[in-house]
């Protein structure tokens, strides 16, 4: 198994959160759901070099699919997650096939346009989605028929954490598979990859589908744990925030995605509890500070530090 130590650390940190903040499990669950979204962006941005400001379209597709299925009687949580993943993957294919027609800034703008169209569609289809009032009344059955999704949120959090660890392990396999390496190659130089005899478009599209599935799982988790799906889950704002979290943590490592999410959302939660009125300035200052101190994200900073220390010891990696 790739990176066993890392996975153990993630599970341990997750459990530590469970023991240390037993009263904040809903927040922690939300962090897990957003972490899945940020991971999904890392797949296309960090591994394939396709920057996107519209990933929430995929997250929202998963959330609404799970939500609508739940309202219509499919209340088993694992089934809902699966539905979310499939919906996310389909949305990912759609998004990829449009976005991959352009590059750079134009690509970024396409992603924005797509998420806005998704948002608009979700608003228009209020008969199914509840529009701006949100899709409410999701009565999710207890997990395995035993563990209910309740006020204290233990089930939701542990369920979410397990999903996250499971997805993380799966993604570790994906990014270290031949496909994953090929994606890294495409990110660096698509012309070289073509000269190696590999098509670029289908590979990227495949990654969009995987990314969509991951985002969709995140969306389904959000729907299950909140019991409401709102238009915010298909918004540009969520997409942009998630991208900021990713860049904050560092691209292309999967760990950076997790670290960025936890740090951004934890910091936001902390400062907005201390001062609910002016926390935005603090978050802004954090972002500026990170760019000044660690232009390649926090995981890049860690990398630099660890390299510096090993070099100091005269060791060779």
């Amino acid at each position, binding site marked *: 198994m790739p990176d066993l130590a890392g996975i153990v650390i993630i599970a341990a940190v997750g459990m530590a959160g469970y023991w240390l903040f037993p009263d904040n499990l809903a927040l922690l669950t939300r962090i897990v759901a957003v972490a899945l979204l940020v991971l999904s962006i890392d797949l296309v941005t960090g591994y394939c070099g396709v920057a996107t400001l519209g990933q929430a379209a995929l997250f929202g597709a998963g959330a609404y699919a799970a939500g609508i299925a739940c309202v219509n009687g499919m209340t088993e949580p694992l089934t809902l997650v699966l539905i979310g993943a499939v919906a996310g993957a389909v949305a990912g294919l759609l998004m990829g096939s449009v976005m991959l*027609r352009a590059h750079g800034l134009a690509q970024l*703008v396409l992603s924005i346009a797509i998420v*806005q169209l998704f948002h608009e569609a979700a608003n228009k289809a209020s008969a199914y989605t509840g529009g701006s009032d949100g899709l409410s009344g999701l009565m999710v059955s207890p997990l395995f028929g035993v563990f209910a999704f309740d006020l204290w949120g233990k089930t939701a959090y542990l369920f979410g954490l397990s999903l996250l660890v499971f997805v993380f392990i799966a993604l570790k396999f994906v990014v270290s598979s031949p496909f994953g390496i090929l994606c890294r190659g495409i990110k660096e130089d698509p012309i070289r990859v073509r000269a190696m005899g590999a098509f670029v478009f289908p590979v990227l599209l495949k990654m969009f589908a995987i990314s969509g599935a991951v985002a969709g799982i995140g969306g389904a988790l959000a729907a299950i744990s909140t019991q409401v799906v709102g238009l915010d889950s298909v918004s540009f704002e969520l997409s942009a925030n998630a991208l900021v979290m990713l860049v904050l943590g560092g691209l292309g490592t999967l760990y950076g995605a997790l670290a960025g999410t936890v740090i951004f959302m934890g910091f936001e939660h902390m400062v907005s509890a201390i001062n609910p009125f002016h926390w935005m*300035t603090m978050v802004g200052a954090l972002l500026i500070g990170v760019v*000044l101190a660690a*232009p390649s994200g926090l995981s890049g900073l860690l990398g630099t530090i660890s390299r510096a220390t090993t070099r100091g010891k005269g060791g060779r990696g």
Partner: protein
Amino acid sequence: MQTILSIAIDALAYGMALFIICIGLSLTMGLMRVVNLAHGAFAMIAGYIASYAARDLGLGYAAAILLAILGTIVISIPLERLLYRRIYGSTELTQVLMTIGITFCVIGITNYFFGPTLKTIPLPGSLSQPVDVGFRTIAAHRLFVIACGLLVAGGLWFLIEKTSFGIKLRATVDNAAMADALGVRTQAVYAISFTVAVGLAALGGVVGAEFLPIEPYYALRYMVTFLVVVSVGGAGSILGAVAACLLLGAVDTTGRYLMPDFGNFFFYAAVIAIVCVFPRGFFGRAG
């Protein structure tokens, strides 16, 4: 026919307002290669200064505009020195992180000092009256915005194509190291371009306030619109920005007239179509 003319003139005014705000961003992105998401924040700062000058200090409209431009530039100078210089040449995503951070800070600080209410910039009597243009009445202010837009487009074209600064700027953009070697003070060129871009944002923020009202969230609320307009036009191209603003203004206005319920669909579908056909924007610079 009357309806078409009427919509056309509305679209023109709205498009020109967008143009004045966006052209500065187009310059920073196209010529300086900085994805400055805080561009709207500068427009907003200018709006606040103008509103303060006109309402609280009782200055005239023209004086308020001037003060707003100068004030915004003064505020931007330390930002350029301390923050922006660190991200010239960085990856786009790093620039996004930094400029979103700046935007958040500006929003937070504005909210703190000026409160969350809408701010208006009172128009002089001559601009606030409806003017009869034959087939309908139109607010004089809209004609003023159109005139400003044309003036800005012409002025910038002259600056970039016809002055020695323009030559230095283009040389720096093409090859900064070479320009440096030829004795162009590239730092200064960047600083001046940045100042020009901020000044244009400021002008746009003030004269466009009738379309995009000034409030603390302005900087984020219209960020997407600005970004879309710039990339559709092609970053760095004046002609492209004019074309994009007019076209998107027309699509937006016509869409909202014909099928208001689906106004956003029209707008974003048009954006997708244009970007797919012109991946570099209408007149984007290669590379």
